[in-house]
């Protein structure tokens, strides 16, 4: 079965550079969530999109922006990178965001390292 695809899997950037992470949801899933997991931390919700519109916003820095495109894939853009941005970034998709029985399907994650 098709799963959530994230690219790249690994990314190394210098401080103050820009990074773009991509997420391709499971076909027919119209909702995408982004989570950030720092070392030894729990995954923290960043932002979500439903039908190409931002549906919820969590602890996402102003330096980050995201969007969902017409084919439902999503991109997380991160500018002025800081050392503290080094983390694992997960994307998840879901077919039913309005239902709290909302099983989210996660991608393998992108490991971002900022030097």
């Amino acid at each position: 079965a098709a799963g959530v695809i994230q690219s790249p899997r690994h990314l190394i950037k210098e401080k103050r550079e820009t990074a773009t992470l991509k997420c391709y949801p499971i076909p027919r899933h119209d909702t995408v969530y982004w989570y950030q997991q720092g070392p030894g931390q729990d995954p923290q919700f960043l932002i979500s999109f439903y039908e190409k519109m931002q549906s919820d916003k969590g602890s996402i820095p102003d330096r980050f922006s995201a969007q969902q495109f017409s084919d439902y894939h999503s991109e997380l853009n991160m500018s002025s990178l800081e050392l503290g941005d080094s983390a694992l970034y997960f994307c998840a998709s879901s077919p039913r965001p309005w239902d709290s029985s909302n099983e989210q399907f996660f991608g393998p994650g992108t490991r971002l390292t900022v030097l």
Partner: protein
Amino acid sequence: DQQVKQNSPSLSVQEGRISILNCDYTNSMFDYFLWYKKYPAEGPTFLISISSIKDKNEDGRFTVFLNKSAKHLSLHIVPSQPGDSAVYFCAASYVDRGSTLGRLYFGRGTQLTVWP
């Protein structure tokens, strides 16, 4: 502000025995709880869930118990197998159409090791 807490970072169990992973939460608006399993270099994989209107849900070797009054849930794995060795995340959600739309709140995870 950690709304979902897993106070045991690790658990070691012998193969064939029961594994019990615990989770506490503070937000009484949560109405759905999920357990995810994570292997290294992979994303979390959904394991089992429970609605707040139930107190037990069973799926094969996995059972989740919910005690709403104590704001506590637990995952039981019986019998435990070496392949169950992974990090287990407890997560919770609720839908508030004015703001949240099913975002998950995670605990920090418990590393389960099942030894032969």
